[in-house]
């Protein structure tokens, strides 16, 4: 593994390996002394063109727990045209000797460009690009599911997952569909037709427009609620649904739907949540919710990714 740009970069063996390494990393995080010397002398740059305190903090903690030097580079609000600033920023980071660049960018594919345009030699980790992918989020979701549903080992063969909400704009959904399928899980996407991309039929998952029917038919082991921006009902924003109330009624996870879930079904959300829109407070705070745990697992998963990308031989073989 040279970069982590898409969940599709991982085959089943590689995905399980990341999760296994994450288990070991999680074990180290239960110790009193959480810091490991593993990546001493390596530099990890967090290059965030969009605000995301939670993701940046998670990567920062992961890198620091492995003793890497961390440089936080917030490029948001730069007045330069975004294209110029991505390349120029990359060249700057290259000059600073970045071994890994963790990039969050509003443009789909920006991490691909960073990895392949020859601007930097470091390993590139996609920390969320536009409406494309967010592979480490999918890994931590898979890790969380494996922990709860498969005792923390192996793959997710046969696990049934329902993913609900704004799939069209969700990088989390794209990465999850790919990774969960790779790991053997069965994914059903539930959304109004307006919030599903044209071409979703080619994805390795089932698609439904009816949440109650999907929950009843699939009897999911995990229900993942995606964030929905209320503004998307505005015509200027695309007019994807008539009102927040109607969305919530048809696709939100409220008390009644929560009660109808199977006894051991877990409720997930990648955050940040719109309480009252896609998820009710009852659901978010219920015992079956893994939402807080997902955040914690994020550090272990990101440690694993950084370890696998950076702890081995340098590309080109020079030590």
């Amino acid at each position, binding site marked *: 593994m040279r970069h982590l740009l898409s969940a599709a970069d991982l085959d089943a063996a590689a995905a399980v390996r990341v999760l296994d390494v994450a288990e070991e990393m999680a074990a180290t995080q239960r*110790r009193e*002394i959480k810091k490991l010397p593993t990546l001493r002398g390596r530099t990890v740059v967090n290059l965030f063109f969009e605000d995301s305190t939670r993701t940046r903090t998670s990567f920062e903690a992961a890198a620091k727990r492995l003793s890497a030097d961390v440089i936080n580079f917030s490029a948001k609000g730069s007045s330069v045209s975004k294209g110029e600033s991505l390349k120029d920023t990359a060249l700057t980071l290259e000059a600073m000797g970045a071994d890994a660049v963790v990039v969050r960018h509003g443009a789909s594919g920006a991490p691909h460009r960073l990895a392949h345009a020859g601007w930097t030699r470091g390993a590139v980790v996609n920390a969320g690009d536009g409406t494309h992918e967010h592979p480490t989020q999918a890994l931590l979701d898979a890790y969380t599911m494996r922990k709860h549903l498969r005792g923390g080992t192996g793959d997710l063969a046969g696990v049934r997952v329902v993913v609900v909400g704004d799939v069209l704009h969700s990088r989390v959904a794209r990465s999850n569909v790919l990774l969960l399928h790779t790991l053997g899980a069965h994914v059903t996407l539930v959304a109004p037709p307006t919030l599903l991309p044209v071409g979703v039929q080619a994805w390795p998952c089932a698609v439904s427009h009816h949440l109650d029917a999907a929950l009843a038919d699939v009897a999911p082991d995990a229900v993942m609620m995606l964030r929905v921006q209320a503004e998307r009902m505005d015509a200027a924003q695309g007019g994807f649904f008539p009102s927040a109330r109607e969305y919530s009624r048809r696709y939100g996870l409220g008390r009644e739907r929560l009660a109808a879930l199977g006894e051991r079904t877990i409720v997930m959300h990648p955050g940040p949540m719109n309480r009252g829109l896609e998820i009710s407070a009852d659901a978010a705070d219920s015992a079956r919710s893994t939402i807080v745990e997902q955040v914690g697992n994020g550090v272990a998963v990101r440690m694993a990714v950084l370890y696998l990308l950076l*702890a081995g031989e340098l590309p080109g073989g020079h030590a």
Partner: protein
Amino acid sequence: MSAAQDQAHPPEQGRVLLEGADVQRAVTRIAHELLESNKGADDLVLLGIPRRGVPLARRLARRLGEVEGSHVPAGALDITMYRDDLRRHPTRELSPTELPPGGIDDKVVVLVDDVLYSGRTIRAALDALNDFGRPRVVRLAVLVDRGHRELPIRADHVGKNLPTSSSERVRVLLEELDGRDAVVITPGGTPGGTGGGAR
């Protein structure tokens, strides 16, 4: 990774130095030495270094128990993330670290490994140990000491001293992992024979 490497270098090609009962005798001797130097089994904690140190530590603990009639805890200490040569090799697999329930504070920790070579593994193990607690004493027991130290480290208990050339490769086979007990030495020149080479 290391399993694949092992298959790439069948030990049958090498010279067998210890076999079957020899290995078990060496373990038994180390057990006796340990009891003698520690004046009994009190406070002993055995920590094997993956991979082959772990089953060796378990055997040693069993032997100690048989001789002394008391339970000696054994565990595993993975030192991968403490290595100083991570960037010289493909990404290494991690193994679990399992400390006995009583922990290691104020205990007599015996690090157990199969082959002592450069000493770098033990250096990493001492670093790792440091993050888990503060033992009263740390000792080192190895099945084979093949020389060529690169650090000021020595073993307290050695099953067999084995003068080798640094181009040679020393492999320890254990019943638990390999189906039989043996110590095999193969001539050098095989590139990639790092399994025992970096110890």
